[in-house]
């Protein structure tokens, strides 16, 4: 009951925080796509590099988010952005890299060797092969990486409230420090709903872009 009352009285503030959250996540994942996808494609053509890149990206993933935010503070203090949007955004971009790079790399790598062989045999240059054949085939799996990254980032962004980045995490951090359980619950539920909604919409999108083959649809579920 308290939950409903809280939501009723804080309706507008909640929407505002949710919007902040979406902006933070959207921008981070957007930038992560712009860097991670080309990078993943690049390392799929350079096998020796791939091992290292994936190892480094994997290491970043293992750093606890609160620690990574902590690391960002002194670094960005140099340009007077120690707390707030910039360090949060940077940390989230780093976190979303791994699923995006790895899925892109795996997707391109797992294109049927016969199909790659045919593309080469037809006289396609490496760029033509990527653009006309490999990337379209890999797209559903790349999209699955984006989906994973988005959901991951929505959760981690909640913690970014501790360094003043705003978003629905505000309710959680403020609720914990004031022992206001209802506020924590509302924050947690709201973040979950946001994650579920994003997952649902991206899932729809993923299906929509999948080439119409039974095989790639199955892969897209993965």
């Amino acid at each position, binding site marked *: 009951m308290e939950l409903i009352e809280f939501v009723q009285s804080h309706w507008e503030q909640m929407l505002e925080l949710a919007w902040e959250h979406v902006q933070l996540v959207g921008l981070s994942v957007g930038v992560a796509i712009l860097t991670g996808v080309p990078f993943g494609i690049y390392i799929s053509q350079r096998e020796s590099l791939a091992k290292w890149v994936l190892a480094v990206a994997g290491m970043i993933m293992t750093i606890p988010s609160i620690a990574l935010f902590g690391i960002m503070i002194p670094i960005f203090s140099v340009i007077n952005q120690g707390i707030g949007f910039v360090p949060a955004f940077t940390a989230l971009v780093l976190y979303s890299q791994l699923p995006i790079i790895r899925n892109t790399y795996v997707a391109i790598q797992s294109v*049927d060797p*016969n*199909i790659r*062989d*045919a593309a080469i045999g037809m*006289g396609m240059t490496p760029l033509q092969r990527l653009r006309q054949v490999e990337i379209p085939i890999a797209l559903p799996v790349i999209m699955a990486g984006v989906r994973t990254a988005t959901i991951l980032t929505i959760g981690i962004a909640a913690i970014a409230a501790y360094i003043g980045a705003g978003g629905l995490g505000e309710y959680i951090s403020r609720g914990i420090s004031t022992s206001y359980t209802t506020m924590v619950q509302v924050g947690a539920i709201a973040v979950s709903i946001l994650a579920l909604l994003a997952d649902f919409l991206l899932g729809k999108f993923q299906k929509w872009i999948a*080439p119409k083959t039974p095989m790639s649809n199955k892969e897209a579920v993965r």
Partner: protein
Amino acid sequence: MIELKDVTKVYKSEEGDVKAVDGVTMEVGEGEICVFLGPSGCGKTTLLRMINRMIEPTRGTIRVNGQDIQQMDPYQLRRSIGYVIQQTGLFPNMTVEQNVTVVPRLLGWDRVKIKDRYNELMDMMGLNPDEYRDRYPWELSGGQQQRIGVARALAADPPVMLMDEPFAALDPVIRDHLQSELLRIQRTVRKTILFVSHQIDEAIRLGDTIAIFQSGKLMQHGTPDELLSRPANDFVSRFVGSDRHLKRLSLFRVRDLLDGTEKKSAKNVGQIDPQYAVHLDTNLREALSILLSSPTASLHVLDEDQQVVGRINWKDFEKLGAIQSSSDPESLAQ
């Protein structure tokens, strides 16, 4: 025309160098089908893939229509050579029409020309262009997919085609059908075709010449008749099989046993037992099989108008030792 001179491919491995292809020198004439035959790992596919520079030779020169391929841009070279592989390699993200017209699009043909070419190719393959235009490869049967694969390879009208076991994954009935389709198409397009196979029967049927390989070495290169009647060594004779003399029969037709002096008799097919009659164009392997079942130990021979033009019996088969295959192997496949 394709000329190979001392073509060698060495792969380095920990146990020492492996010669996948070892000093192969041979020629394939323009408009001919040459079948590369041999057990798996004999280097036939490696050799094939060196023709379009998907694999670079360690040593030796390859000339396609007089031009040394090492001097050519590999992408341009590949666009000028049709390429068909076993698992079709059709692009699943493209429709049938997009698949077939890949190379013309790479070559920058204009749209009208590409569309016309698509229609022409599909007609040639016996597939309705409009019915298949917007369909995706996975919607088609294996046989249809491979026909699209052949159409795609023919799209830019390349003088040379490389076919790497294109029919091996298909069931025997479909394979048989596609083999005769290929021969039918070849009669009009007259490409120089290099065809990798591991089946002696396919090689005999399709090849103007057959090249047999073992451990990267060319064992023998000759017409199917030469290989079957005079195998160069033990390996070739074992590979073509102990029934090679029977196989050789399929290279000849009943026509070859008759000396051309036969006259039309008044009899027509109504007056003889059609079960024990053969046509002039029936191949001798089939004729022998029918003869084995004939109670009179002889067969009536019919011409195109179903008129009896002669008889053959066991004695006639004895002539075979003396005659060379004179028949055009393509017409045998009908």
